[in-house]
């Protein structure tokens, strides 16, 4: 069975600083990896995904993530955050046609 661990429940950061949100997964088979963002009182928006190929994946809003198979990680990064990036971020994993399995989320709080 697959599982996802988001190591930080909250990450406070000042505006224009870099940020990394950590995600580790466990699976005995190859999986697809995703990051979703959830703004207050809204649904989930896809930020980026890793399906295959290059391990560095670029997404929307200047975010990127790197797939590391040996460390079973898929950390999300942004070189310079904005106030508008304040939101809940979810890492998720799935096999081919299976359901998405989500982590518990990381609350990114950007301060001016």
């Amino acid at each position, binding site marked *: 069975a697959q599982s996802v661990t988001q190591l930080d429940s909250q990450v406070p950061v000042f505006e224009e600083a870099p940020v990394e949100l950590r995600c580790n997964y466990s699976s005995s088979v190859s999986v697809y990896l995703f990051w*979703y963002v959830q703004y207050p009182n809204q649904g989930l928006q*896809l930020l980026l995904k890793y399906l295959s190929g290059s391990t560095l994946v670029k997404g929307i809003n200047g975010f990127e993530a790197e797939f590391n198979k040996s460390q079973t990680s898929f950390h999300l990064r942004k070189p310079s955050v904005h106030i508008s990036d304040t939101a809940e971020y979810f890492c998720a994993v799935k096999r081919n046609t299976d359901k998405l399995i989500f982590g*518990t989320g990381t609350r990114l709080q950007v301060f001016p």
Partner: protein
Amino acid sequence: DAGVTQSPTHLIKTRGQQVTLRCSPKSGHDTVSWYQQALGQGPQFIFQYYEEEERQRGNFPDRFSGHQFPNYSSELNVNALLLGDSALYLCASTLAPLPVTQYFGPGTRLTVL
């Protein structure tokens, strides 16, 4: 290009009642999944519908049931509501036969009193 839509936006029910939530998938998509997101938690998979049949089911009791219509829209029904059913219910759609990426709707916030 219409995204995933859900109705209603908010709903308040009392314990023991029944509720129906609705979802229209993204244009061109034929597979619908439902997730429950309790406050402060990540979404949990309820079930997935494809070709009007339940294809996968998560660890939810039989009080949770669903339906998919020929136009691919879907309903989630919950009977005998409990306080613990209060949550944001999310619908996601994708396209078979390789439904890798799921696109989510805005959700329905259900409050059970």
